[in-house]
Structures are given as structure tokens and as C-alpha cells.
């Protein structure tokens, strides 16, 4: 497979997953606001600030907007194409990548993605959003699910498939760390509120942002306990959005691409993913809390980035050809 194609397939899948996660985060937090009464500007800002911080785009946000509120944050994360991680920018980028590799993906995938793109580019999109953000975000999520279904049912299990899976799970692992981190940044009105109604509502919102509400409750019946939630989203070996689950998939995918047996490694990416998987497989939530949840999640994000970079070096990066030098060499051979 061409290196360029592998890169495009990876980013296509990754951008779609990113768009889906952002919409869930926004949708849930818009809902959450409805649970509170009489919020003043400052409280609204305190609600949205952590989300901006968690996405890692805080600096850019404050270059574009003065104040974090429902309107500005949703605009920034949904429609503003100056933000490369807004929903619109993600879907446009996913579609552009799909266009680059049209010959590699099924026409069903391209058409579904193209439909979403045409919808978002139409004047209709903003109207739908104004009439109800939920319908709008649902639509994006449905398309993301459709994408995953189509990848699963129309793509041969070859290298291209693996690079798409790699993109999906890399993004998902990263976003789960960020969603979990949102709560770290959320301040409770008062120290006595810990475990109170607001606190619980925030934790529930967090679970919903990760599509984990039902799955969590199936295991921990009706008990919204921060340590358990962290344990579930980090260490669950069966929930498909937990960090451990995603890293296991990443590790499997990398080994399938190279053909190297799971217990060993043939490149740096495999070594790093194996190492991270080991830590996640044998780690405990007590250890995480001792270290500090935020610090721990920061560390995971950094390690995921290293896996991404070394995979890029192993498969997608091609040393740039010095055109002038190449021309000269070829002319000497004429």
C-alpha cells in the first residue's frame, strides 16, 4: 500500500471519530446546563471552560472569542472552520482524505461521507442546528456509526482496513482521556458539594460523553462513584471506549500490519504500544489516584502521541525527495 494512502486512510478514520466525540461532549454538556437553575455568566463560563481546556484548544479559543458560554463554545467546536478540530473542520478533512483515496474505499463509504459533507455545506445545516442542537449532533453521530458499520461490512481485512482501525482507536483513546479529564477542571461551587447533586450530575454527564452510561451501570449498579468511573474508563477490558481496550486494539492492529507476533515487536511503535498495554493491563485505579488523575491522563496522552509518531515513521513517512538534487542526478544519467 502506498504510504500516502495509508496516511490518508488513517486520518479519514481519525477525523470521523474526533467529530463524533466532540458532538457527544457538546450534546451532553448542553443537556447538563438544563439541570441547573439560574446560572450567572461566571457560572456558565465555569461550566464551559473545562471543556475547552480538555480539548486542548484553549489558546485558540480565546484568540477567537472573548467569553466562554454556550453560544461561543458550541460555535467554536461545531461550526468554526478556523478551529481545525471543530466538527465541520473534522468532517471536511475526513471527506478530503476520503477523496484522496477514493479508489481504496467502497463507494458506500464515500457516498455516506459525501452526503454528510454536502449537508454541512448547505445553508440548511445551521437551520437544523438552530432548531435543535440534539438533532444536529445526532445526525453527525449517526453518520459516524454508519461509517464504522460500512468499514466493517464493505472493506476487505487488509492493510487499508488496519490503518483505518488504527486511526479510529488512536482518536478514541485520546478522547476518552480528555473526557475523563474534563471533571478535573470542573470546579464544584463549594467543597461540601462533593458527592452532592451537582457533582453526581457532572459525573453522569461525563459517562454519557463517553457513551459509557449504560455500560457502566450494568457493572456498578446505580453507584456513581468517581474512582469506579475512572477505573471503568481506563481499565475496562470489555468496554470498547476504555483506554485499555483501545490500546489493546492499537497493539493488535500494529502487529497485524507488520505480521510480528504479539509477544514481541519489530518496530518502535509496537514496542511502545506493547509497553503501554502492559501498564494498562496490570495497573490499578488506586495507583492512578495516588499519582493524580490529571497527571496520569496527561502521561497517557503523551504516550499515545509517541505511538502515533513512531507509526508514522515506520509506515507513512517517506524522506522528502530533494527535487533539485534528484533532477541533477537523473540528468547525469541521461
Amino acid at each position, binding site marked *: *500500500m*502506498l*504510504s*500516502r494512502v*495509508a496516511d490518508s486512510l488513517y486520518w479519514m478514520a481519525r477525523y470521523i471519530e474526533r467529530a463524533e466525540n466532540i458532538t457527544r461532549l457538546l450534546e451532553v454538556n448542553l443537556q447538563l446546563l438544563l439541570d441547573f437553575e439560574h446560572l450567572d455568566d461566571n457560572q456558565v463560563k465555569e461550566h464551559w471552560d473545562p471543556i475547552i481546556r480538555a480539548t486542548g484548544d484553549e489558546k485558540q479559543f480565546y484568540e477567537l472569542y472573548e467569553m466562554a458560554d454556550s453560544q461561543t463554545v458550541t460555535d467554536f467546536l461545531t461550526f468554526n472552520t478556523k478551529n481545525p478540530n471543530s466538527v465541520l473542520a473534522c468532517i471536511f478533512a475526513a471527506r*478530503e482524505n476520503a*477523496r*484522496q483515496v*477514493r*479508489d481504496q474505499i467502497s*463507494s458506500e463509504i*464515500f*457516498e455516506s461521507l*459525501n*452526503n454528510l459533507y*454536502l449537508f454541512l455545506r448547505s445553508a440548511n445545516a445551521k437551520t437544523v442546528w438552530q432548531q435543535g442542537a440534539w438533532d444536529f449532533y445526532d445526525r453527525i453521530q449517526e453518520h459516524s456509526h454508519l461509517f464504522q458499520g460500512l468499514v466493517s461490512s464493505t472493506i476487505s481485512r487488509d*492493510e487499508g482496513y488496519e490503518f483505518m482501525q488504527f486511526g479510529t482507536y488512536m482518536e478514541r483513546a485520546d478522547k476518552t482521556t480528555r473526557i475523563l479529564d474534563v471533571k478535573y477542571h470542573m470546579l464544584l461551587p463549594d467543597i461540601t458539594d462533593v458527592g452532592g447533586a451537582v457533582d453526581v450530575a457532572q459525573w453522569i454527564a461525563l459517562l454519557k460523553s463517553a457513551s459509557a452510561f449504560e455500560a457502566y451501570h450494568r457493572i456498578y449498579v446505580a453507584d456513581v462513584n468517581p474512582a469506579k468511573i475512572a477505573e471503568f474508563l481506563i481499565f475496562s477490558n470489555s468496554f470498547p471506549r476504555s483506554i485499555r481496550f483501545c490500546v489493546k486494539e492499537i497493539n493488535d492492529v500494529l502487529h497485524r*500490519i507488520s505480521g510480528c507476533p504479539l509477544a514481541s515487536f519489530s518496530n518502535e511503535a509496537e514496542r511502545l504500544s506493547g509497553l503501554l498495554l502492559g501498564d494498562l493491563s496490570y495497573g490499578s485505579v488506586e495507583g492512578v489516584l495516588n499519582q493524580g488523575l490529571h497527571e496520569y491522563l496527561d502521561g497517557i496522552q503523551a504516550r499515545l502521541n509517541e505511538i502515533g509518531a513512531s507509526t508514522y515513521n515506520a*509506515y*507513512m513517512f*517517506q524522506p522528502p*525527495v530533494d*527535487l533539485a538534487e*534528484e*533532477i*541533477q*542526478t*537523473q*540528468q547525469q*544519467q*541521461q
Partner: protein
Amino acid sequence: MDFKNYQTEGFFDEMFAADGEARPHYKKLLERFERLDPEDFDQKRQAVGLSFMRAGITFTVYSDDQGTERIMPFDLIPRIIPNSEWNFLERGLKQRITALNLFLKDIYHEQKILKDGVIPPSYVLGAKNFRREIVGIHVPRDIYIHICGTDLIRDDKGEYLVLEDNGRCPSGVSYVLEDRNAMRRAFPNLFPRAGVRPVEHYAEQLLKMLQYINPNTERTPVVGVLTPGAYNSAYFEHCFLARQMGVEIVEGRDLVVRDFKVYMRTTKGLQQIDVIYRRIDDDFIDPSVFNPKSILGVPGIVNAIRAGNITLANALGTGVADDKVMYYFVPRMIKYYLGEDPILKQVDTYLASEKEDFDFIIENIEKLVVKAANEAGGYGMLLGPWATKEECAKFREMVKADPRNFIAQNPISLSRHPTYCDNGDFEGRHIDLRPYILYGEDITIIPGGLTRVALRKGSLVVNSSQGGGVKDTWVLYNDE
């Protein structure tokens, strides 16, 4: 839908004879359309447009920073060619491409046709697209033009004439296949009843041809389509063909030349490629030989061709056959190489570089069609009878300044075809026809081709960049 108000207005009409009677090969289509109410028709029309948009069968117009994607305007009424007429065209086109390939082989090797004085050498050797770099280089199977899109028109008597040969990178074949697809969905039952010959095997034939020109005969060739990239207006077609053939689509930056061989840069290292269907012009394909500023091409690919390690389709240097001055000499080539008279006629042409013709052109410019010898897409052209005095004067000066670069032709009253217009009725619009010819182990032509239609009333320019649209083209198994 009916054609009661339809007027042929003295033009040769594909569907209706001068007396207003439908031609026999259009009768079944006419019956079907007469049973169609306007609402159904409109619904089908919109459905087809929407399906093109959704499938991304678009070309990009860059008027703002994002670029707007447009679909090629598609007319629902197909153009129909009866079997015997098609057989005649097929014979004529095969004869013509055979002669053109013999001509290219000759001028890049012995140049007998020049030595025998059939064509003045300066016309060939001084042609803008004559590539000195490949003189004496053998190309596999001696084929230069593997894929040709010859433009045909019909005059006021319905006689087919060759308008130009496109022997470089003719585009549009994906529309032929996608338009057929759309028509099948819109009128599923009409096809078996009308007896339409299929076109779907094109990609298979294209691949077979590309494999046939494999330079490394000891192994199964790796084939690729070379595209300028996703921002090229024909990118959809490049992907479409690659996908249909199941071959790799590559850009210049995916390829690198080492030891006179061309390699693709893959996730598993370098992989050698043997045959490239290239959709990049000669000028841009190798910055170490041609335009050094090109970033689309592959430095060293000409070295690999010389070493016999890669075949390009079409070969380098075919542009000389597209030169409109060379067009003038094609009937002589046919006679010279094949000893035959041309089966297909072509438009009478005046060469501005010949004294007598030059005087005639300058005096009669407002009655003539003047064309630059190396332009395409409807550019660099003067339609004398429809042009302003200023435009005529401008072209007169251009011809005087550079006679070698201009030809002139008598204007042809192109045939017309009923076409759906914005006013909700059918009106006659001028059309042409571009059949796609493949030259491999044998010569194959998909039945039909691209019928382009000038959608603006009275316009003779069918190019999509200038308000043209397309129609599905049906070749029948029979004559009616």
C-alpha cells in the same frame, strides 16, 4: 412529454427527419417519452442530478478559495446511433488510429514520410509537441497512442466528419459509464426493449491493453494510474478508472526512479511499477527533461523509458499528432501508410503557413473558424461568422504574427438533437461525439462514447468549461 412544438429549423436533426417524422432508430424512445408525464420526467431529472452530486461525480470550479463542485449537466434524452452507422464509424476510426500510430513510429525513427516529401519536415520537426528526446527510442509493441478520443461531428447533411484527434490524455470516459448507469436507473425497462449495446466492459479492456504493453514481459505487470492529484478537475475520473481496474492510483510524489526503474513508495518499502496510465501532459511528467518547475512529475522517468523499464500510456510525444496542422495531413498519412482512401472525411482545412491559404484566411476571416494549432477545450478559437469586428481583427493580427500556429476551417453547421431546456420543453441543441478507442493487442472501441451538447441556444461550443453538457449515447444492436 411530447415533441409537437419541436422544430428542426433547417438543421440536420438526429431524431427527426426534415418532414418532422421521427427517424426509425428513435421510434421506441419516442414512444417511451410520449407516455411520460412532465412530473415523472422532472423527478427523474432531479434524481439523476442528485445521484451525481452524492456520488461526487463532479468537477471543481475554482471561483472562490474553497472551490465549488459542480456536476456535469446531463440531458436525459439519449443520442442514438443505429448499428450499421456505428460499424461504418468503427472502421473509419480504426483506420485513422492505425495510420496515426504508424506516423508516430515513423517520425520518431526513420522519418520516411518526411524524406518522401509527403509532409514538409519543418511542420513535424518544428511542432511544439514534437519530442526530440524520444527519437530512436523503442516503445513496447510500437504503439504510441493507446487511448484516443477522436471528436466527430455531423454536418448539415448528416455526414460524419472528424473534427480532431485527441491522442494525449483524452478525458470524459467516466461520464460515459456513469451516465449509462444513471440512465439505467431512470429508465430500467427501456434498455432491453430498445436493444442498446453495453459499455460496461471498458475498464476491463483498458486494463487488458495496459497489461499488453508490459515492458518487463517475464512477469505480471504492476499497473498504475498517474494523476496530478485530488485538485485536478478530472480527479474523479482518474480514481474511477483505477478503482474499476483494481490498480493503484499514484501521484508524482508517490514515485521515485532508482537504477532506471520506477518505484512506488509503499508502507513496505519500494515496489517496482511497470505500466503507467498517465493523466499528466508531457511537459510536466519529468522535470529533469521537460518543464523543470513541475512538481507533478517524476524526475528520471524518461531515463526509465529509455532503459525500457516502464511503459507510459499514452507514449511521450503523441501531442504532435494533436497539432491541428498535422490534422490537415492525416488523409495523406492514411494513403501513405495504408494505401487506402480515408473512410471518414474530415473538415476542409486551410494552413496559414501556406501562402495561398494565408491570403485566403486573411481576406475571409469573418467567414471562417480559426483555431490555434495547439489549444484545446474550445480555447484559442475564433468563430468568424459570430465574432465581433474587433475579435476578427485581433485574430488577423495573431495569424499574421505566427502563421505556423494557426489553421482555418469552413464553419460546419453541427447536427442538432432534441434537448430538455429550462423552459420545460425540448429544443434542438448542437452536439458532437467523442468515441474512446483503445489500441492494444487489437483495436477496441466502446459502442457509443461521449455525446457533448452545447446547452446554450445557438452555441456551437460543446466543452464543459464553456456551458456544455452531456448525453448518454446508445449504439443499437440493430438499425431500429
